[in-house]
């Protein structure tokens, strides 16, 4: 049912999942839909709450700035914006511990900034510059920061699900108390490798959490036109994988859900599928005119009633941990940081043509340790 509210004929949205929408209690007993009082959220200091708020703001401002840069012709290829979904990445990453890892699809700017990548390297990557996180090789869809347990940024829909499984496998093999958060879209649930991965995750009991960010659309195709049966999280059920559905506009709820799934993974190494209902304000990519598959009203309703940043801001104001002036400062500095990153990117050099041949093989990047002989490349620069 929570899928339906994504169809162009709008329906009112249930504030929290009904009991039929999970086979496992991924959320503490929250009668009134207020997750601020659950243990994991109680543990947050006022400072930490403000940091979480500013992270969401930073992500949004960064992407708005990147959109302008795209329109100015500084960014090529695809640009998939995360605007509207910020609470999912920020909330999820905020409950990770040091041995937990993240992998996601091509809509990866939010996750990248949430794990702590800085705006400069991200914006520079969008500009295709040498100073980009992937040295201009990857672009918007392919951000990486292994040092921050962030494994990309993957362009092929669903292609990252077996990779996430493998990260979890390696953690278990090395007896680390960690798990992998594998983010994916609602449309990605229609790629076969996801099911092969669900079976393996359950069969081998691997600490992986598949987080379906259900923004209601696979490009221009609404959930009800691309997927039979609801909710999508239930697709874990026949494999005995824990599953549940949550609302993604409430950062507190996201933290609660992901936190519980992570402890389940840490303690029992059990996998989970969490469906987090969210929404993207912009077109699928900047190239999408966004005129064929949803109404302006639908978008406006979300912005008005479900904006994760506004909702969290109101909560923090009510809790008295944030003031309007603080909020304005946070917004101001996020804008400044974004502008600075665009300037940094603009000022950065493009990769040198010879860099085309870097990073193809570990071996060719380490001539001193080369063990093979013969010719590796058949048309070079």
């Amino acid at each position: 049912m929570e899928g339906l509210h994504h169809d162009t004929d709008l329906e009112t949205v249930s504030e929290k999942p009904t009991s039929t929408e999970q086979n496992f209690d991924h959320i503490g007993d929250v009668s009134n839909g207020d997750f601020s009082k659950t243990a994991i959220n109680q543990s947050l200091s006022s400072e930490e709450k403000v940091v979480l708020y500013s992270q969401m703001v930073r992500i949004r401002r960064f992407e708005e700035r990147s959109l302008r840069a795209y329109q100015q012709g500084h960014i090529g290829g695809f640009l998939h914006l995360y605007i509207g979904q910020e609470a999912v990445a920020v909330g999820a990453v905020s409950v990770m511990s040091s041995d937990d890892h993240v992998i996601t699809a091509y809509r990866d700017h939010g996750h990248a900034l949430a794990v702590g990548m800085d705006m400069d390297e991200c914006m520079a990557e969008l500009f295709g510059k040498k100073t980009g996180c992937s040295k201009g090789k990857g672009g918007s869809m392919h951000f990486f920061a292994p040092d921050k347990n962030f494994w990309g940024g993957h362009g092929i829909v669903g292609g990252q699900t077996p990779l996430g499984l493998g990260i979890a496998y390696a953690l278990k093999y090395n007896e680390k108390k960690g798990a992998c958060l594998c983010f994916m879209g609602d449309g990605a649930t229609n790629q076969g490798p996801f099911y092969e991965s669900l079976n393996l995750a359950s069969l081998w009991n691997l600490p992986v959490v598949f987080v379906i960010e259900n923004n209601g659309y696979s490009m221009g195709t609404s959930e009800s036109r691309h997927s039979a049966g609801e909710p999508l999280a239930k697709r874990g059920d026949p494999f005995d994988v824990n599953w549940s559905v949550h609302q993604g506009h409430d950062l507190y709820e996201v933290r609660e859900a992901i936190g519980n799934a992570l402890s389940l993974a840490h303690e029992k190494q059990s996998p989970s599928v969490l469906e987090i209902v969210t929404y993207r304000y912009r077109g699928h990519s900047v190239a999408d005119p966004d005129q064929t598959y949803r109404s302006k009203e639908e978008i406006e309703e979300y912005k008005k009633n479900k904006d994760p940043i506004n909702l969290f801001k109101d909560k923090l104001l009510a809790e008295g941990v944030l003031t309007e002036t603080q909020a304005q400062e946070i917004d101001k500095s996020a804008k400044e940081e974004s502008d600075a990153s665009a300037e940094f990117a603009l000022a950065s050099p493009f990769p040198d043509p010879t860099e085309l041949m870097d990073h193809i093989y570990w071996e060719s990047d380490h001539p001193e340790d080369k063990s093979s002989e013969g010719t590796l490349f058949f048309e070079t620069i």
Partner: protein
Amino acid sequence: MAIITYREALNQALSEEIERDKNVVLMGEEVAQFKGSYKVSEGMLEKFGGERIIDTPISEAAFSGLAVGAAMMGMRPVVEFMFWSFCYVAYDQIFNNAANIRYMSGGLINVPIVFRGPANGGTNVGATHSHTPENFAANTPGLKVICPSTPADAKGLLKAAIRDNDPVCVMENTILYNLKDEVPEDKDFLIPLGKAKTVLEGTDLSIISHGRSVHTALQVAETLSEKHNISAEVLDLRSIRPLDVDSVINTVKKTNRVLLVEENKPFCGVGAQISYLIQDQAFDYLDAPIKRVSSIDAPQAYSKALENIQIPNHDRVLQKALELAS
């Protein structure tokens, strides 16, 4: 003849064949309500309805295989891949089922299906979205492969592909979608597969190419004649399998020097096969080794600063042409 874009030419071919034959349907991601992610099928849903223009989930393996099964039953599905790169998640359905079922059934079955979509680099979409699998498909007996380079070819070849009784892989190019040129309106305008086209007559060397590289070849030929007084002949293969070997050999016999230009990665690319054929059948006519310009042998780079060099561009092709002609 009307002057229309490559995109419109594809749309005409699809529309005409759908009108002509009830067995023809178009299916793929975003082809209907969204009008095609590159707007190739614009207006077709309104015109032909959801029975004939079908949106699919992101399940390339399933809808490719579904189309093969339907083709076994006598339908003539046209499957659109948003990018040919995505054939990697449907590989078995195309390269085993579509390609082998006729053979494995001793000829009891045929599979009249078209797989189509763009297969090119040059738009900064990175390594996973820039594959050019024409060499993989052409390596596979049972499959046919065409790479139209002009609006007219796009229409005539696609129409022929849809009427073909075998599986045909049609490899288009997003950068050519806006290319405008004259296109015949005749509803039976067909270009036979396996017929190359001499797009420029010349005497000093032959540039053999396919897809968008043909246009690069033509620009280089212009530079060669204007700045270097070298007369280049340009042959557009148009079809990779079947291949117009005669036209290839004829131009070699005429100019005695060959430059192969393609977007394929070099190792076992189309140019490799053409080289073998030429030296095998026209050995004594070659005044110099066959030269190639392909994509630089690296995964496709995102940064335009890199990708503009990676794909065969005017300067890289010109340089090789001059080496060859000297």
